[in-house]
């Protein structure tokens, strides 16, 4: 085969271009730490990356949602604990006031304390968290309980629970609604106890003690229910945190460049490039022209 100088220059130039492309790609990989950057670099790999990042965004949203539900339920639990403590105090008072040795004046004084307990219980039941009523369902702009004309507390919230979407397949209820029978039972028991004390009615006090015990148990049950939900949420959170860790690891493995391999390739390419440059500079002296004098 005949060989012309044009062929040799063309071959060397093609080699130089090829090595420059290797250098450009290698430098990009080293500087970014990624083995590809754009869909044009690797179509299917890029899709896998998008899918992983989509899953990652979903997990981030789920963890946010779990935190929202935990905060809301945590605030509810604090209030329920307070209300439970008030029921315990009321029960304790009822045991004391059921004694036949107490006078009407003693019971009148106790009635004042029970009145305070009732007011405090109502305050806790109307508690707001981040400006929203905790126990009024989705009617968070309204007070959960209001006093009617007869001095009784009635539920004024909605009958709809506050649902937190943790993912498109997992939704949890993030509230305790005030229309639960436990609230009504507690209000009624406290109100009846107060009335019995004011009337100095020992039999009614005995009856109220039973109601208070029952209502106290109801509040304990509600608190336990919230605790159970919080425990379940903690498990869910751990599960999503594990998923987040796994996804981050998978993304790193999928997208990360093999830096030692890339550096070795860059070194090889650099040597080839230098050899090509050297050969181009030598080619001009490899002609008969240089020997004709």
């Amino acid at each position: 085969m005949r060989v012309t100088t044009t062929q040799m220059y063309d071959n060397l130039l093609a080699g130089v271009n090829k090595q420059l492309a290797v250098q450009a790609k290698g430098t990009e990989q080293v500087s970014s730490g990624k083995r590809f950057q754009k869909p044009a670099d690797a179509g299917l790999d890029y899709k896998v990356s998008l899918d992983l990042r989509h899953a990652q965004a979903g997990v981030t949203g789920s963890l946010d949602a779990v935190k929202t539900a935990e905060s809301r339920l945590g605030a509810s639990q604090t209030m329920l604990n307070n209300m439970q403590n008030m029921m315990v105090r009321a029960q304790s008072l009822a045991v004391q006031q059921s004694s036949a040795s107490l006078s009407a004046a003693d019971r009148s004084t106790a009635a004042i304390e029970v009145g305070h307990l009732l007011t405090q219980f109502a305050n806790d039941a109307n508690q707001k968290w981040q400006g929203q009523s905790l126990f009024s369902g989705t009617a968070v702009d309204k007070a959960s309980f209001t006093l009617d004309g007869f001095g009784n507390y009635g539920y004024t919230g909605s009958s709809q629970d506050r649902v937190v979407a943790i993912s498109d397949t997992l939704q949890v209820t993030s509230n305790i609604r005030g229309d639960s029978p436990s609230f009504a039972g507690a209000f009624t028991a406290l109100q009846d106890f107060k009335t019995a004390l004011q009337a100095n009615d020992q039999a009614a006090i005995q009856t109220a003690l039973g109601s208070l015990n029952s209502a106290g148990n109801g509040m304990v049950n509600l608190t336990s229910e919230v605790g159970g939900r919080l425990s379940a949420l903690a498990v869910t959170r751990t599960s999503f945190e594990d998923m987040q860790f796994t996804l981050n690891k998978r993304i790193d493995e999928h997208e990360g460049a093999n830096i030692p391999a890339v550096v070795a390739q860059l070194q090889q390419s650099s040597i080839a490039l230098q050899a090509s440059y050297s050969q181009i500079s030598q080619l001009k002296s490899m002609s008969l022209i240089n020997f004709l004098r």
Partner: protein
Amino acid sequence: MIFNTLNVAASSLKTQQKAIDVVSHNMANVNTPGYSRQTAELAALSPQQLQGFSLGRGVDLNNISRSVDGVVNQAMLRNSPQQAYWAGVKSGLNSVEYVFGSLQSTGLSSAVDDLFLAGQQMANAPEDVALKLNMRTKSSALTTHLSNMSNELQAAQQTADTSIDQNLLSANKLLTTIASLNVQISKNESSAHGVVGAANDLRDQRDQAVRDLSGILPIQDVRTSDGGVLLQTMGGDLLLQDGNAQQLARGGVVANSSFRGVVFAGTTTPVTGLDKGGVIGGSIALRDGRLAGYIQDLDSIAVNLSFAMNQANASGVGSSRASQVQSGLGATNTALPVDDVAQNNPFAPQIQNGTFSMHVYDAAGAPLVPASKGTITITAGVSTMASIAADITTLVPGVSASVDATTGKLVMNAGVNTVGFSDDSSNFLAAYQVNSLFQGTNAAGLKLSDAVQADAGMIATGQIDLATSAINVADNKAALLMMDIQNKSISIDGTASTALNTRTSLLSTKYGNDVALAAQQQTFFQAEADSLSQQRQAFSGVNIDEELVSMIKFQRAYEASAKVIQTSNLMMDSLMGLIR
């Protein structure tokens, strides 16, 4: 006899001089594209008979031959259109690479994820105004992204279309040049002139022009017996014969495209076979194939996203309500049913028999008394925009409705009161973008609805109680429906039912695969082109060393002939000395 020797030497001097001219011509054209090495072919002159001897008369330049490999030339003609086609496609695809984002900014895909993340946050605290503002921002970012992508791709289509015009100019120029060279070659090589190989350089120029033309559009090259060239398109249309060249031009808009086709100038006859290769074929494939496909995919994402989100929003309610409500889309013909295809509304086929309810609230935000609700019945194939407007006026307390005469849009006015919508089982509200989140019918035109743009509180999070018209501020039923759309397979435009995030990632994959295919094909045909170029160089290229050696040979022969003349002269001197 001595004179005979002088004549022989003189013929050599002249011939060697001409041979050195050929060598010189070769060296001068060592870098000329398409140049083919020429060789001086020397031949002994016919001998003369003298006294029974056959005496030579010297040498002459018999021919200047051109080194051309016809097989390689034909292979180059087949390779060139393919190489140019894929190079054009690859270059065009690379020019829109930024549109599809990168891992640092995954573009449309992350915009969709951001929207649904904002939707989830809003669903989990629907009473929080800041989260609604965030939802509006992310929705706007997504529509802007879709719109920008679509506009950039349309601009790339325009660029591809403009490049067709430029390449047609080049093709016409080359056709004219080839026709002109045909005439010159024929003239130079005609027997009247009697010079063999007289058109070597013109033939090189013509071959190069034909190769250049084949890079622009695929052609068939037919050599005629008289040395002429006849060119046809791959579809068999005659492009050029002898000195007659057709010219190409842009024609009318082609069916299923918004761009003009390529025709023979002065006619409406389309040029066939352009899709077989060449840079024009590459531009057409890029414009009407790849780019149009991406735009179609974006439009599909836009209409599916828009309709699904609007469906959830239209039957929901936010923290704000409006007194005046106008549909985002109008009826082209208010007398035709709203689901008629003639309405030119891509969502119209989704309208079905069903109802929707409107609820009216007083200035204080309480449901209007004694009645706060009206239910409108939609019958597919029957209900018109005008009949719906009339029904609203009749059935919804305190609301008057009309159809805008210019735009065909439904306009509802509740005066000092406000209105909300619920329970649309007919899809009318979403199809005509009433109480909607988005407005628009394609990616380029998709935007936030005017109402949401003006007030983020118009983004629906809850749903109105159908019986009591009550609204709970932390109700998130509508927001949950929106959130469900993220991973749900949907299709309202005849495309395969697919989730939105899958649609966006498939679009990137489709682009990536197109680039990979174009790069792979271009690399293949470039390697083939390089190989053919090497083969052509090996056969037709000028080797300086060879030429220098030839030059030395001819120079030495020239010197030898001069020596013969000198010797003959001495012989003549000796002979003349005998006479003196």
